[in-house]
């Protein structure tokens, strides 16, 4: 079996009476694309937020490359190689697309406690930013303010920001949320191109996409992981079919 990069042990998070994360033990292997599926409200985003360090779990632990990182802040995890795209688009709306990217690149290009030299003179930052924009197909809108973009472009920029910090692990929370079939197809192709280069934890609703992209799949239901396995195993799993896939087919 390959090396485990990210692991949770008996992770637990309550919102009042609701247990949003219920003793979740999950292992993501280095280099794999691991999909996290489950119906709305299953606790997928809550889990991602805890993995990213934005939300503190009530119990359990999180390990990255063998190190216990449960108490690490979000920015420390980013420095370790975590990157995140948000389900609800979270960008810098008053910056241009290029400036968004340049700021992401800056965070992994030496100290930002520099007060005198103009950022605009640091051409390497912007060159690297443009490279990433090209790789996600956003070079044409580079100088546009983020606020003026469409939703599909926002989703692409979410992904681009995550890629800009030279991560090892990408936490992608529904990268295709709310975009049309054509743009979805482009996003699937983009993510497929990331496979092998990064370790991916992908939250996704579209089963076709999941089964095309994922090496392994974990199914979350009411905060609990009810199954983990290869795509084929999950498809064949009776409990999963009843609890989740069947529901999709009926819908």
């Amino acid at each position: 079996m390959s090396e485990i990069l990210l692991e949770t042990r008996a992770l637990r998070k309550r919102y009042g009476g609701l247990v949003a994360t219920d003793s979740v033990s999950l292992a993501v292997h280095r280099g794999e694309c691991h999909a996290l599926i489950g119906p709305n409200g299953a606790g997928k985003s809550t889990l991602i937020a805890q993995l990213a360090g934005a939300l503190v779990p009530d119990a359990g632990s999180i390990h990255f490359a063998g190190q216990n990182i449960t108490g690490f802040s979000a920015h420390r995890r980013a420095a370790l190689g975590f990157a995140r795209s948000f389900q609800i688009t979270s960008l810098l709306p008053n910056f241009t697309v290029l400036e968004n990217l340049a700021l992401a690149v800056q965070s992994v290009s030496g100290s930002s406690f520099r007060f005198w030299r103009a950022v605009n003179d640091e051409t390497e930052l912007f060159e690297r930013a443009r490279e990433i924009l090209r790789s996600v197909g956003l070079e044409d809108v580079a100088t546009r303010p983020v606020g003026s973009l469409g939703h599909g472009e926002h989703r692409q920029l979410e992904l681009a920001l995550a890629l800009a910090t030279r991560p090892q692990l990408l936490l992608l929370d529904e990268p295709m949320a709310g975009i049309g079939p054509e743009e979805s197809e482009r996003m699937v192709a983009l993510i497929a191109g990331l496979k092998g280069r990064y370790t991916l934890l992908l939250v996704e609703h579209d089963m076709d996409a999941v089964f095309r992209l994922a090496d392994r799949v974990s199914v979350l239901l009411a905060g609990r992981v009810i199954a983990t396995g290869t795509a084929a195993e999950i498809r064949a799993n009776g409990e999963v079919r009843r609890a989740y896939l069947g529901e999709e087919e009926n819908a």
Partner: protein
Amino acid sequence: MNHLRRHGWLLATLAVALSLPQLAALCGQDFYVSFASRLLIWALLASSLNLLVGMGGMVSLGHAAYFGAGAYVVGILSVEAPGWSSALLVWPLAVALSALLAVVIGAVCLRTRGVYFIMITLAFAQMLFYIFTSLTPYGGDDGLSLAKRLTLPGLAMAGDATFYYVVLAIFAACLTALGRLQASRFGRVLAGIKDNEERMESLGYATFRFKLVAYIIAGALAGLAGALMANQNAFVSPNMMSWNESGIALVMVILGGLGSLWGGLAGAAAFLVLEEVLTGFTTHWQIVLGLILLAVVFFAPRGIAGLFAKQP
């Protein structure tokens, strides 16, 4: 074209600033020289607050704490160490102690956000205000008069025009530094935090540290403004750190332009000139000021400086 216009304004501002003592003498209104000094000192205070509020999104209602602290460093030293008469010694000390105060207060306040941040900065400033009103050895409530201005080698600081040029040089230096900061890596990060702090965290920025450093710089500059004001007025009092003064600085920032480099100067000039003109007509001049502030918020949300800036 825009470039030309901007440079035009800059040159005009500079020309007026440099020749102000001569202009005042021509008009026979020497009072304008000290008025201009006060204006520049307020502009420095407002610019330092603009770093916090306009660039960093940290709305503080207690910024006068550092203004007062800087002033009291000058005041207390004039009592305890009258021999320390050099501004080259005392002003840096005022800046350093204000910065130190900002480290302590900032480390606590920046744990909170939004309305809580407003309230807790206000609370700290009011606490200092009451501490200084009860410090009877240094005048308590009544404040403390200074025998004379601090000295600078080769300059007759007692002269209002000389002092004005010193303040002008300091203000110009600080504004230049703030301009560099705004366009620097640090400035971009600060702007990013103002826009979306959670995103900046997930990009790997330790946002608390950046905000604290901005808070310390702002406190240090406000302390410098306070030290200058103590010398300008030859007087310090707890009122310098009251919430009223913090409020005025905030009004200046909004009036002048949140986040604009020139916002602090534009706001201070507008506020003080309005005050000067309107008090001649009515004692209720603040009603008029209120209406103007409303108009700015609704019709020129980028403030006076925004009217001159190039359109995005």
